[in-house]
């Protein structure tokens, strides 16, 4: 009886390591049990591609693809799907963008944009069945070549196809074949290079494991074309499955006469042997590979002579890579014109890439040359997971380079990637997110090549070790700026004077990171910081490193875990004097880097901070004592977070500090913009009052118009923190009807002026937090229907995901891909005209640029439009003091000292950075206070004592077990929209202590005898490589 279902079980390397063979065995058992063995055929296949989701099971004829199948799931699949025809939904793929399940393999986005030529059979046939290979058209091309074409004809086809070497160098394959064909030698050799050694590259393995005959057929055609009798596949010993499948494929091919004497009853005879390499990376270099094939030490030799004239045993030798051979039969069978129609002008056909790193869908993909990098990463790869930002992609492994975000629209080809300082290489693509340290990445690759150098030539052998020394020094914070020049000089020397390709390309990872991420090297050298919080010698813990104010999170959390809230508060005040505010509105950069996420979820650091701050407020704690007054005076303009922070730390250092505020209330945007349901004003006041008690004088209603007057008044220095309060506008009509306001004015009206006028229908334009704030505030003021119109995709909204989710709960509707073009209405606004947008090419931020779609314009009926599309600084005050102001009103300052071009005048916060976060402003204010102290003759030291690790008094091991993150109480959405009362509740004291104990103490790096004393996850956090 014919089968009714074909069930393909992926047995590629990745799926096998996630136990796909157990799934297969269970399938066999279950089919027997249900008497389905005759109707359902199980096929073990090679790699299907999306390795992340293995084990994969593909069921035909429906084409249903199941992911992450465990043996325990098999019974359900058999009884539900195979017997009753009900697809098991929980094992299906899910769309990344829309919340839907995808049943069929071909509609999964991962597969949609791919074009499988090389991988056509991988995951589709049983690699151990030559019959299935033949059924899929196999050996037809070999038959066609040897019976109907001349060798010259085959070579001509290869040339015309435009195929280039897929091993990395991209040399035209047909030309290479022609060289070998033209050699006058009775004996010639073809060699397949399967010594795949790049970290993160596994395409050759997948082909050998999933479709070995395609390589055999390609080699046989090549042998016919160049006139060779012997073939060798040089495959690394680390690929036992590939060796096994190749070996059985060779036997099967011999048995059917595709190898051996008189192939297809012609005069052509050819056979292939397998040679197993011992795993030296350098043996991927062709001359080293040949040396190793011959049984000698695997070291490269000088070319010429090239292998095509003198290779194995001095015979003319054709050497191509696995993927190159895998293309051959398709070109012969379907013609060079077909092949040449795929790809770009100079790079034809497809390329297989191994996607790995920080990307949702890791695995093997095959795309036409010319596919853009962005399509590869986002459309196929599914983008960067865990809400992180893309930083760069690394291609070509240790010989390749990095490509940063602004180049996402680059079509992939040999030429374009080379222009960017990267290479196509063998096809490894490592996606790097914001948590990657580029210096450490370069160090990793140099460490690899330094240890894989054959040791023959001096620049590579000794030079790479010296580069590694220097990179090590930099990642330890011991680098000097001169090191960069030396590093570059060494890199260029090695690149240009090494003997073989290994050395000539080994410096590329350093050169390309220096090209695009030099600032990161400089951060390590000048400021001894690792922005990605990877280089462990340079920070206390990842949370501390990622905090713009560098709050010693591990220390205060440790105090909290001991129940000592007062000590925790003291630690916090050393670097951040606004704990009540930050405990509520902080972006919590710390949590995004929290290593606890490797176990389940980050520690709820912000909520912990709030508990601590509320405790301090209720117990009227003052924080550390300021130094005695030193008699000098400093003026601060603006009472937002930057000004308050700078003022506080100046007071701590002994300065008499006066804050000038133009408005009748202190706090800047925290008072005028952030709604009270997020930040109650008594909390704001408590934090500010504490700063006043610490010795800062705040003068309200005191606008400053002339900095020189201040300096003449006896202030030794001035810190300008006037924020970015000017609302940006859109050209929506002229004159604008009533009912169109800016988000800034709307929120300020509510919180400062006490106005509360709102329409029944409100449309908010924008995607940032102030748009969300406006929308949620409008709901609270009684608006029936609030819509946010945003021109990009929802996933691209800059507002925090938490805020967006809460807004939706409160009934705010988000209309993304919608760009307002004008208002409708005369006296009063009646509607908002919007164009519907489509996702265009990627912009410099790595998001897709919205472009107008062909959908018709829509009109949103509304009685009020709130424009919250961004704010900017004016720079007026500083311009008046003769300081140059850049575009957007921003003032250029030194990032460490916050000093402007004029000595004695410092600036920070939104005024210099543009709209940013409270905690960034606090960090800037503190840095400025230190610099002002130095400027006025002090030593700029705020904390003279060394950091002390806080001992804890509970059983830490118990808390490294999985333990859910604590969630504070939240008011229900229905209640929330009835008032401006605070939405988020706080932990009970015991709950806070419990939550604090989830901290893994990444700050405890090593004990004296060099043993890491943290938990395993703590070690992971302390490790420099990810």
């Amino acid at each position: 009886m014919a089968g009714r279902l074909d069930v393909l079980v992926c047995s590629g390397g990745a799926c096998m390591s996630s136990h796909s063979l157990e799934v297969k065995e269970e399938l066999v058992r279950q089919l027997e049990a249900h008497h389905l063995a005759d109707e359902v055929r199980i096929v073990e296949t090679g790699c299907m591609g999306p390795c992340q989701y293995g084990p994969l099971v593909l069921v035909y004829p429906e084409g249903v693809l199941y992911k992450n199948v465990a043996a325990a799931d098999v019974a359900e699949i058999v009884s539900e799907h195979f017997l009753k025809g009900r697809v098991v939904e929980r094992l299906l793929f899910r769309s990344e963008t829309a919340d839907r399940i995808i049943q069929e393999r071909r509609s999964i986005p991962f597969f949609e944009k791919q074009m499988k030529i090389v991988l056509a059979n991988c995951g589709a046939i049983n690699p151990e069945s030559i019959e299935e290979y033949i059924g899929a058209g196999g050996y037809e091309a070999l038959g066609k070549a040897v019976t109907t074409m001349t060798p010259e004809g085959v070579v001509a086809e290869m040339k015309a196809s435009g195929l280039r070497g897929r091993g990395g160098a991209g040399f035209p394959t047909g030309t290479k074949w022609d060289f070998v064909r033209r050699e006058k030698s009775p004996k010639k050799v073809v060699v397949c290079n399967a010594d795949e050694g790049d970290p993160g590259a596994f395409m050759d393995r997948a082909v050998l494991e999933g479709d070995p005959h395609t390589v055999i057929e390609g080699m046989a055609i090549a042998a016919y074309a160049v006139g060779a009798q012997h073939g060798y596949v040089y495959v690394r010993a680390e690929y036992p499955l590939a060796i096994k499948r190749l070996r059985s494929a060779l036997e099967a091919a011999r048995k059917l006469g595709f190898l051996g004497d008189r192939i297809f009853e012609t005069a052509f005879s050819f056979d292939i042997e397998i040679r197993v390499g011992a795993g030296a990376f350098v043996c991927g270099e062709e001359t080293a590979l040949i040396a190793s094939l011959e049984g000698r030490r695997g070291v490269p030799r000088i070319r010429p002579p090239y292998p095509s004239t003198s290779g194995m045993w001095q015979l003319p030798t054709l050497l191509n890579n696995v993927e190159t051979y895998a293309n051959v039969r398709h070109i012969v069978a379907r013609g060079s014109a077909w092949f040449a129609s795929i790809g770009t002008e100079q790079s034809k056909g497809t390329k297989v890439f191994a996607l790995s790193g920080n990307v949702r869908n890791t695995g093997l993909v095959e795309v036409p040359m010319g596919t853009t990098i962005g399509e590869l990463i986002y459309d196929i790869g599914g983008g960067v997971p865990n809400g992180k930002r893309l930083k760069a992609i690394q291609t070509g492994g240790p010989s390749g380079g990095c490509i940063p975000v602004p180049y996402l629209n680059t079509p992939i080809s040999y030429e374009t990637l080379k222009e960017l300082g990267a290479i196509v290489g063998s096809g490894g693509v490592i996606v790097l997110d914001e948590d990657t340290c580029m210096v450490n990445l370069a160090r990793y690759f140099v460490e690899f090549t330094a240890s894989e150098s054959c040791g023959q030539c001096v620049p590579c052998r000794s030079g790479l070790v010296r580069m590694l020394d220097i990179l090590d020094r930099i990642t330890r914070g011991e680098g000097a700026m001169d090191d960069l020049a030396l590093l570059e000089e060494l890199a260029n020397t090695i690149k240009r004077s090494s003997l073989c390709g290994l050395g000539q390309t080994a410096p590329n990872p350093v050169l390309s990171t220096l090209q695009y991420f030099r600032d990161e090297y400089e951060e390590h050298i000048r400021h001894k910081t690792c922005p990605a919080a990877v280089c462990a010698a340079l920070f206390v813990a990842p949370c501390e490193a990622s905090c713009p104010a560098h709050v010693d999170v591990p220390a205060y959390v440790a105090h909290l875990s001991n129940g000592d809230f007062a000590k925790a508060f003291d630690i916090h005040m050393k670097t951040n004097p606004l704990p009540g505010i930050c405990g509520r509105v902080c972006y919590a950069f710390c949590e995004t880097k929290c290593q606890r996420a490797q176990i389940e979820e980050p520690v709820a650091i912000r909520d912990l901070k709030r508990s601590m701050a509320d405790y301090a407020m209720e117990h009227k704690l003052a924080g550390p004592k300021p130094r005695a007054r030193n008699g000098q005076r400093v003026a601060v303009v603006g009472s937002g977070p930057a000004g308050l922070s700078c003022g506080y730390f100046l007071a701590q250092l002994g300065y008499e500090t006066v804050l000038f505020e133009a408005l009748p209330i202190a706090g800047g945007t925290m008072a005028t913009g952030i709604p009270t349901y997020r930040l109650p004003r008594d909390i704001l006041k408590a934090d500010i009052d504490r700063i006043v008690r610490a010795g800062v004088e705040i003068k309200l209603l005191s606008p400053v118009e002339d900095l020189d007057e201040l300096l003449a008044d006896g202030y030794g220095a001035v810190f300008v923190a006037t924020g970015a309060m000017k609302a940006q506008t859109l050209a929506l009509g002229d004159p604008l009807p009533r009912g169109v306001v800016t988000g800034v004015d709307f929120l300020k009206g509510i919180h400062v002026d006490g106005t509360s006028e709102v329409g029944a229908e409100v449309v908010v334009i924008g995607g940032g937090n102030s748009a969300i704030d406006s929308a949620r505030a409008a709901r609270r003021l009684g608006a029936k229907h609030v819509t946010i119109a945003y021109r990009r995709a929802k996933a691209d909204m800059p507002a925090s995901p938490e805020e967006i989710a809460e807004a939706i709960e409160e009934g705010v509707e988000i209309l993304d891909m919608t760009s307002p073009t004008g208002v409708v209405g005369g006296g009063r606004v009646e509607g908002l005209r919007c164009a519907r947008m489509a996702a265009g090419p990627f912009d410099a931020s790595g998001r897709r640029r919205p472009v107008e779609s062909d959908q018709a314009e829509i009109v949103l009926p509304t009685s009020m439009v709130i424009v919250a599309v961004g704010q900017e600084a004016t720079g007026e005050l500083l311009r008046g003091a003769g300081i140059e102001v850049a575009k957007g009103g921003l003032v250029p300052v030194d990032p460490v000292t916050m000093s402007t071009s004029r000595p004695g005048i410092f600036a920070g916060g939104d005024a210099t950075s543009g709209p940013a976060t409270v905690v960034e402003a606090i960090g800037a204010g503190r840095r400025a206070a230190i610099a002002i102290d130095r400027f006025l003759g002090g030593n700029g030291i705020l904390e003279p004592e060394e950091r002390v690790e806080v001992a804890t008094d509970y059983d830490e091991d118990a808390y490294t077990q999985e333990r859910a993150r604590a969630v504070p109480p939240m008011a229900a959405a229905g209640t929330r929209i009835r008032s401006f009362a605070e939405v988020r509740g706080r932990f009970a004291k015991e709950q806070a202590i419990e939550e604090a104990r989830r901290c893994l103490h990444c700050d405890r790096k090593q004990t004296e005898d060099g043993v890491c004393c943290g938990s395993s996850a703590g070690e992971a956090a302390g490790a420099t490589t990810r």
Partner: protein
Amino acid sequence: MKLEELRKIRERVQNDLRLRGGAARVKIVVGMGTSGIAAGAREVLSAFLDEIEKRKLTDVIVTQSGEKGLASKEPIVEVIERDHPKVVYGGMTAEKARRVVVEHVIHGTVVEGDVLAIVDAEKE
């Protein structure tokens, strides 16, 4: 091995691989819910598979579905042909299944007596 021999192997195997092609002309869906199986859907399914095998039909696939909600008419079978309305047969037996293969699938004549419904593809 000659080219002709190779092609023979291929034809034989292709029949074997037809399920994976996704390009079948006719799809026969057998309702295999609890009531379907109770009414003899297993035998119907086997008969379809057997008949298709015997007649070397390479462009027909047989698949299964769940309960159709019409227990009294089980076993229920749908015959879906490209560019044709879907034909739903009820009260199938192994014998009737073989007839559907010959008359409907091969010759394109609907087996009138057993038809429950004819459904336009768009209306689904």
